[in-house]
């Protein structure tokens, strides 16, 4: 076993080095993902299911940036999903702003909340990080429950509808299910493009290094805390985006969207699909929602079955559905 002598292959050129780091699939992952999402309404049992896959898939993609790529297990991401949804709903219902401004407000509120929660949580590690995020998100939940004049309390937020998406020069009928689906797909596609760029950026390399070995990343000269915070905030904004889309889609924000069960759902979808893979979160959302659809026809205790399947996944396919397929594809 040679340590310092170069007895193996000749040094690869830097181009070949690049090919090793950025296989062709990476270049096409956004178009391929979007294409797949475009087909969904035609192959799934219902269009309602397809819209949910879009929204929950995006939610899991946002979460995956923090969990799968940065290695931070948050149990509080429902807070950003809910905050985005509530802020959008309140902006439209109470302040009467147009849909685009409402979305921006949703993202801003989710991003602000993520900055605060991130600054508090990132001081801790491991299980304590998870617990702090959980506690802070419960704080948000109970705040929404108490501030019922703004949020509708237990009944959820109602009384706002987006029926048309108006652009300069034209408008889309948001009540038409297919128009709605593809309008949301465009937003999701933009988000995926952004995530893909971020993952390919120097920042993307640093978060993976932090996931792999925080101590060494710090010794390599990276400000680990600041990088984690940026990842936390980006992740929160993406989950907030999923929230704004959910609010506009449903015309209601259920209080449950802030509940810790929603946080658990996000973790589950991400793990089912494959944490740390680009398209895995959508597969996870699809798998979960399909199971819910099918098993809830048989029994009201469908979560029991999903729970067992989830445990089997954690035990035998820890890379998730998509992550396992990718591993097979690479021959490992």
């Amino acid at each position: 076993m040679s340590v310092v002598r170069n007895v193996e292959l000749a040094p690869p050129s830097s181009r070949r080095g690049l090919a090793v780091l950025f296989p062709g699939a990476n270049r096409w992952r956004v178009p391929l993902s979007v294409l797949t999402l475009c087909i969904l309404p035609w192959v799934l049992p219902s269009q309602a299911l397809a819209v949910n896959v879009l929204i929950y898939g995006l939610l899991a993609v946002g979460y995956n940036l923090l969990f799968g790529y940065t290695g931070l297990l948050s149990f509080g991401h429902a807070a950003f999903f809910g905050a985005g949804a509530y802020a959008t709903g309140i902006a439209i219902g109470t302040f009467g702003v147009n849909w685009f401004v409402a979305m921006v407000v949703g993202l801003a509120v989710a991003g602000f909340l993520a900055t605060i929660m991130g600054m508090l949580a990132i001081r801790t590690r491991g299980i304590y990080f998870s617990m702090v995020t959980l506690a802070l998100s419960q704080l948000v939940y109970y705040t929404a429950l108490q501030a019922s004049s703004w949020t509708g309390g237990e009944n959820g937020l109602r009384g706002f509808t987006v029926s048309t998406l108006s652009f300069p020069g034209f408008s889309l009928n948001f009540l038409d299910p297919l128009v709605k689906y593809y309008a949301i797909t465009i937003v999701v596609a933009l988000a995926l493009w952004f995530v893909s760029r971020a993952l390919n950026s120097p920042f993307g390399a640093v978060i993976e290094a932090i996931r792999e070995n925080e101590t060494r990343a710090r010794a390599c000269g990276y400000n680990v805390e600041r990088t984690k915070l940026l990842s936390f905030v980006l992740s929160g904004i993406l989950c907030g985006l999923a929230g704004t889309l959910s609010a506009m889609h449903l015309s209601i924000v259920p209080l449950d969207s802030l509940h810790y069960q929603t946080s658990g759902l996000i973790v589950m979808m991400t793990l089912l699909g494959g944490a740390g893979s680009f398209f895995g979160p959508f597969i996870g959302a699809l798998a979960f929602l399909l199971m819910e659809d099918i098993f809830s026809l048989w029994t009201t205790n469908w979560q029991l079955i999903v729970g067992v399947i989830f445990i089997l996944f954690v035990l035998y396919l820890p890379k998730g559905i998509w992550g396992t397929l990718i591993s097979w594809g690479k021959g490992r």
Partner: protein
Amino acid sequence: MNEPIMSVANVGKQFGGLIALRGITADFKEGQITAIIGPNGAGKSTFFNILSGALKPSSGTLKFRGADMAGVPQHDYVHRGIARSYQITNIFPNLAVLENVRVAAQAFRSRMNIWTNRGVYEDIEDKASATLAAVGLSGRAGTLAKFLAHGQQRALEIAIALVADPALLLLDEPTAGMGPEETREMVALIEKLAADRTILLVEHKMKMILGLSDRVLVLHHGELLADGTPEEIRANGEVRRVYLGQNDGYA
């Protein structure tokens, strides 16, 4: 020119009631190889962690090129010119070997950029490839680091520190767990590296240290027991008593 690159004055470290280091004073001259030795629990690791910024001393000062390092966060040490390797292999296991080194090199170009493709920094890529070649890992560039053999992981460990091109390189037991052949190769590499940088290393293999170093510091119970050339250390009766004489299987 003969200014010390790093000077340690009266450095002590306490963990609760345990005194790990007591009043260490030493200057490290540019271009030398200095070895730090001592029995287990002598405070070598603590001393090393202080020199690399992982720990802050409880008392005393640490100066690098004349600048006090007290308020400098650990992640800035490498930017000042101090890099370290670890005794227990401390790599990025699920990243490709080349990426392990590339990400370390990238810290000098871009840390928080979320928009540019990292592939545009070709010089970083080239530097990483060249560093891999220097430690003999070119052929494994695309392998995940966790699949490397132990000796190769040790080489990668050094490469990650080396790509920072540090003026002061801290090596924590660079030959830990290596056989005689690998150890010889590592010694050759260290000698090559020492041509244009200052090296400080912690080691257990006495023959290697006495042959390689310009200077040896001996720590014992958290105190500096001896400081001198390898010949002086070999001749020092107290050192022989507490350390060299305690077992003969040290080589």
